[in-house]
C-alpha cells in the first residue's frame, strides 16, 4: 500500500516557479558584484598575433582586462576530458590542451579570447569595442569526413588526420560472414545533424571569494555541482577542495548541455579570487549558440544483411563523429560507449560490427545532448529496419516483430547478452509494440492512408521501437571503458527531532521534479506526510558527494541510494521503537508510520521515535543517539527502458511541408513513481525529437561560421506545430535496483526523431523517395520528391 508512490502528486517545487520566486543563477546579486564580458573569436581558425588592452583597460567602469596569458601566468590549466577512448591499435587518445582562454590560436568561432570585467554589464560590453586583437586567419575544416582527408587543415598539430581516436565494437569477421550468407543487403548513408541544446535559461556563473577565510564559492548553472568542483579544484585551478563550494540553485533546463565543465566557470572563479570581488557572467543567447556544447553531428553508413523472410543477420555501421575543436568533458563516450553499444536495439541481430572515428573540426565542441548517442543509434537502426521492410514489402510492424528479442524479466529468465557488450536487464518489446498498435488503431490508420492516397493526400506512419541504456552507471564497468569518474550516487537522510525529514541528494533537478518524486518515496517509506519531507540538492556545502543528473540516472541511481539510506534509518529506528515498546524487534511491525507490537494495539509513532533519538533519556544502551543515515549506491548494471512510438504525418508534395497529425507513445520505464512527471518528460522529449526531425540544425559554412546562430535562424519547435500526444506505459521492472525503476528522461528524444523520419519516408513511398535528410524542411522534402521523380 502506498499513499504517494505511483500517484500523480502535484509538484511541490511549482509554487516558487509560478509565483516568480525561483532563484536561478542570474537572479543572484552579491554585494560589490561586478560583471564579466567575454570577447570571443570571430574566426574558426586563426593565429592570435596581438591583443592590445590599453584602451579597453581605461574605459569607464572597467576593472580588469584579462587574457589567456594572464590566466596561464597564474598557473591555471586547461579543461580536462573525463573519458578516455583510445585508438584501436592501443595508441592513446589525442587529448590536446583545451585552453580556458585561447592563447596563441583560436579553433572555433566563439572561443574565449579575452575577458573584460567592469562595474556594469554594459560598461564591460562597451569596453570590448575598444579591445584591439590582431588575427591571422587560417583555413578551417568543419565536416568530419573532410577533416580526415589528406591535406585537410589540422585543428591540433599533434592530432594527425584530425583524429582524436578510432574505435570499434562487435565482431568484424562474424559480421562479414553474415553478410556473405545474406539474401540481401540494405544500406543507407545518413547524417545525424548537429543540434544546439538551447535550454531556455542561458548559462550563467558567479565567482565569489572571501579572502578572510580563503573560501571560494561558484554559483553555476550546472547539472552536477560536485563534478564541477572536483574538476575545478583537482585539474584546472589547483584549489583546496574543502574550501571551495559549488552551488547550482534552480537551473532552467539542461538537456546535457549543463553537465560539462565550462571555460566561464573557471574565468569567474579565477577573476573573483584575483579581484576579490564577486564576478558574474551570464550568456547572451548568441553566446550560448557559440559556446554551449553542441550535440549529435554524425556522418554514418549503415548496412543491414537479412534473409528474404525479414530475419536480420548482420549489421555494419561506420560513423564519423564530429567532436568539435576540443574534447569536452564526456565527448569521447557519446559516439562510442553510448552509441555503438546500443546497436543491438531490440532485435536479435546475431552479428554486429561498428567503427567510429572521433574527429576534431573547427567547430564548437560536441558532447552529450538529451539521449546522447542513443538517439543516433536508434535513428540509424530504425531507418534501416524500415527500408528493409519496404524492400521486402513487409509492414514495418511485422518486420520488427519478426526480429524482437523474446521477453525476459531478468529474474526467472536471465538478462539478454547483446553482441555489443551490454547485458539488458529486462524487456518485453513486443508487448510495448502491441499496446501501441492497439492504442493507435494502427490498422485503421493504414486503411485511411490508402484511402487518402487515392485522393492525392499523402499521410505516413512511422514506427520506432527503441531501447536505451540509462541509470548511468556501474563505476567499475565504466572505469574499464575509459571513464575517469565513478558513476555511483548518494543520499543523506536526516530525521529531525520532530520527525520531519530532510534528504540531501547528490543528483540535481533542473526540471525533473525530484523535490516531489523523491519526497513521495520518503513519505511512503517512513509513513509520514509529503509536506514533512524536504529534498535538498545542488549545494556542495550541504549534499554528500554525488555525480549529478544526466543519462536518466537520478531515480535509478540516486533514488536507490536514498532507499538504502532510508533502510538504515528504519533499521535504527526499529531498535529504538523496540526499546520504548519493551518488545523484541522481531515482535514489531511497521506500518503507516507506526511500530505496532504484533497482535496488539500497543504502538509508537515515527516522530516519537525520532524525538527519542535526540532526547535519549530512555534509550537502548548500545545505540548512538541521533537519526541520520547516508548511502552511496553504485548500480549493478545500466537500466534499459524501451518502448514503441508511432508518428503520423501528412506531407504536402506541392510545398514539401510536413505536418505532424498524431503521435502515440508506449514506453516502459519500469516502476513509475509519479505518472504526471513521467508523462511530462515524455512530452518534452517528443517535441525535442520532432524538433531534430523537422526543424533544428546547427549549420556551419565552409569557413566555420555558424549560420544558424540565433533563434531567428535556428528553428525551435513551437506550440502550434504539435497535436496532443497520446502516451501510455507498459511496466517491466528493473530487476537490479531497489525501486525497480529504469529512468524516463530521454526516451522521447530517442524515439521521436526516428518515428517522424520513418513517417515522412512512408508518406513519400508513392513518389519513390527512400530517405529525406534531417531536418526535413519543406525545401528538403520537395527536393527529395523532385529528385526521385527525375530518376523514375
Amino acid at each position: 500500500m502506498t499513499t504517494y508512490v505511483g500517484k500523480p502528486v502535484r509538484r511541490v517545487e511549482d509554487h516558487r516557479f509560478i509565483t516568480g520566486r525561483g532563484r536561478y543563477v542570474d537572479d543572484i546579486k552579491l554585494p560589490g558584484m561586478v560583471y564579466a564580458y567575454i570577447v570571443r573569436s570571430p574566426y574558426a581558425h586563426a593565429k592570435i598575433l596581438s591583443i592590445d588592452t590599453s584602451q579597453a583597460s581605461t574605459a569607464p567602469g572597467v576593472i580588469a582586462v584579462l587574457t589567456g596569458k594572464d590566466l596561464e601566468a597564474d598557473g591555471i590549466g586547461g579543461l580536462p576530458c573525463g573519458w578516455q577512448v583510445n585508438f584501436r591499435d592501443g595508441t592513446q587518445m589525442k587529448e590536446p590542451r583545451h585552453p580556458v582562454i585561447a592563447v596563441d590560436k583560436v579553433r572555433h568561432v566563439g572561443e574565449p579570447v579575452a575577458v573584460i570585467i567592469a562595474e556594469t554589464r554594459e560598461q564591460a560590453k562597451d569596453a570590448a569595442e575598444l579591445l584591439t586583437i590582431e588575427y591571422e586567419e587560417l583555413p578551417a575544416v568543419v565536416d568530419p569526413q573532410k577533416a580526415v582527408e589528406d591535406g585537410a587543415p589540422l585543428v591540433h598539430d599533434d592530432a594527425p588526420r584530425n583524429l582524436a581516436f578510432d574505435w570499434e565494437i562487435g565482431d568484424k569477421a562474424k559480421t562479414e560472414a553474415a553478410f556473405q550468407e545474406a539474401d540481401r543487403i540494405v544500406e543507407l548513408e545518413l547524417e545525424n545533424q548537429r543540434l544546439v541544446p538551447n535550454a531556455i535559461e542561458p548559462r550563467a556563473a558567479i565567482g565569489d571569494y572571501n579572502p578572510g577565510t580563503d573560501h571560494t564559492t561558484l554559483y553555476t548553472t550546472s547539472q552536477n555541482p560536485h563534478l564541477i568542483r572536483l574538476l575545478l579544484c583537482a585539474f584546472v585551478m589547483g584549489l583546496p577542495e574543502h574550501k571551495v563550494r559549488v552551488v547550482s540553485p534552480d537551473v532552467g533546463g539542461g538537456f546535457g548541455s549543463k553537465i560539462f565543465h565550462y571555460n566561464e566557470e573557471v574565468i569567474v572563479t579565477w577573476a573573483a579570487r584575483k579581484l576579490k570581488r564577486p564576478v558574474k557572467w551570464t550568456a547572451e543567447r548568441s553566446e550560448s549558440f557559440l559556446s554551449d556544447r553542441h550535440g549529435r553531428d554524425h556522418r554514418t553508413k549503415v548496412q543491414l544483411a537479412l534473409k528474404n523472410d525479414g530475419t536480420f543477420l548482420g549489421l555494419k555501421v561506420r560513423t564519423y563523429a564530429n567532436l568539435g575543436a576540443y574534447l569536452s568533458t564526456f565527448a569521447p563516450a557519446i559516439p562510442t560507449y553510448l552509441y555503438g553499444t546500443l546497436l543491438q536495439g531490440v532485435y536479435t541481430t546475431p552479428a554486429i560490427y561498428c567503427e567510429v572515428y572521433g574527429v576534431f573540426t573547427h567547430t564548437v565542441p560536441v558532447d552529450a545532448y538529451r539521449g546522447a548517442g542513443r538517439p543516433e543509434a536508434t535513428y540509424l537502426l530504425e531507418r534501416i529496419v524500415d527500408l528493409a521492410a519496404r524492400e521486402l514489402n513487409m509492414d514495418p510492424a511485422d518486420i520488427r516483430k519478426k526480429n524482437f528479442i523474446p521477453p525476459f524479466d531478468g529474474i526467472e529468465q536471465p538478462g539478454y547478452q547483446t553482441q555489443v557488450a551490454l547485458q539488458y536487464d529486462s524487456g518485453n518489446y513486443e508487448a510495448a509494440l502491441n499496446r501501441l498498435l492497439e492504442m493507435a488503431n494502427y490498422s485503421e490508420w493504414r486503411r485511411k492512408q490508402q484511402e487518402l492516397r487515392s485522393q492525392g493526400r499523402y499521410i505516413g506512419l512511422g514506427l520506432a521501437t527503441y531501447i536505451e541504456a540509462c541509470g548511468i552507471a556501474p563505476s567499475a564497468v565504466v572505469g574499464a571503458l575509459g571513464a575517469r569518474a565513478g558513476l555511483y550516487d548518494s543520499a543523506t537522510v536526516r530525521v529531525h527531532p520532530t520527525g520531519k525529514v530532510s534528504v540531501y541528494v547528490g543528483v540535481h533537478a533542473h526540471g525533473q521534479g525530484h523535490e516531489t518524486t523523491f519526497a513521495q518515496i520518503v513519505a511512503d517509506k517512513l509513513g509520514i506526510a509529503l509536506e514533512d519531507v524536504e529534498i535538498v540538492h545542488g549545494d556542495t556545502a550541504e549534499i554528500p558527494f554525488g555525480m549529478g543528473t544526466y543519462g536518466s540516472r537520478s531515480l535509478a541511481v540516486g533514488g536507490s541510494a536514498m532507499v538504502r539510506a532510508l533502510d538504515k534509518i528504519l533499521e535504527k529506528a526499529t531498535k529504538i521503537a523496540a526499546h520504548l515498546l519493551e518488545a523484541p524487534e522481531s515482535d514489531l511491525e511497521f506500518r503507516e508510520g507506526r511500530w505496532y507490537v504484533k497482535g496488539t494495539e500497543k504502538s509508537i509513532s515515527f516522530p516519537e521515535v525520532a524525538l527519542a533519538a535526540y532526547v535519549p533519556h530512555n534509550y537502548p544502551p548500545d545505540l548512538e543517539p541521533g537519526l541520520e543515515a547516508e548511502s552511496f549506491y553504485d548500480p549493478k548494471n545500466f537500466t534499459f527502458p524501451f518502448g514503441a512510438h508511432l508518428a503520423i504525418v501528412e506531407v504536402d508534395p506541392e510545398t514539401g511541408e510536413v505536418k505532424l497529425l498524431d503521435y502515440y507513445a508506449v514506453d516502459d520505464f519500469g516502476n513509475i513513481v509519479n505518472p504526471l512527471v513521467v508523462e511530462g518528460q515524455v512530452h518534452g522529449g517528443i517535441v525535442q525529437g520532432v524538433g531534430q526531425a523537422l526543424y533544428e540544425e546547427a549549420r556551419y559554412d565552409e569557413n566555420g561560421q555558424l549560420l544558424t546562430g540565433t533563434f531567428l535562424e535556428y528553428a525551435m519547435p513551437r506550440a502550434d506545430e504539435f497535436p496532443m500526444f497520446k502516451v501510455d506505459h507498459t511496466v517491466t521492472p528493473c530487476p537490479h535496483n531497489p525501486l525497480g525503476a529504469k529512468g524516463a528522461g530521454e526516451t522521447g528524444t530517442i524515439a521521436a526523431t526516428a518515428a517522424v523520419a520513418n513517417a515522412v519516408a512512408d508518406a513519400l513511398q508513392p513518389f519513390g523517395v527512400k530517405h529525406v535528410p534531417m531536418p526535413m524542411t519543406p525545401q528538403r522534402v520537395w527536393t527529395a520528391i523532385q529528385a526521385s521523380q527525375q530518376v523514375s
Partner: protein
Amino acid sequence: MGVPIKVTVNGRQYEAEVDPRMLLVHFLRDVLDLTGTHVGCDTSSCGACTVILNGKAVKSCTLLAVQADGAEILTVEGLEQNGKLHPIQEGFREEHGLQCGFCTPGMIMTAYDLLQRNPNPSEAEIRHALEGNFCRCTGYQNIVKAIQYAAAKMSS
C-alpha cells in the same frame, strides 16, 4: 546620465533614474529586484520576458525602461492576490505545465493576455497564442492544458 521615470508595477509606484539604454526587463530584474521575469534570448524570440504593460502582453526585452515611463505593469509576482494563486498559476500546477520553470512566468503572462481577450479559447487558439514563447521542457502539451484549466475555472 540617468533619465527619471515613474512606473507602477504590480500596483506599487516606483520612481527611478535609469540609463536611457536600459531595457525594461533589466529594470524589472536589476533595479526593482523582480527576478520572476526572465531573459532567454537577444532576438525577442523566446517570450521568457513577457509582462503585461498597460493591459497588453509585451516582451520586456524589446522595450527600453524609459519607454515604460508612466505605464502600469503586471509581472508574475503580482498575480497572486492575498495569498491566493491566480487560476492560471493554479492551472500550471494542476496540469504540470512546467518543469524547469524558466519559461513559466512568460507563459503565464502570455496566457493572462490571451484569456483577457478570449476567455474561452480553442486548443488551436491557445497554441497560436503561445507561438512566441519557447519551452524546451514540457513539449507544450501541459501548458495548453494548464490554460484550458484556467479558462474553465475563470469562466465558472
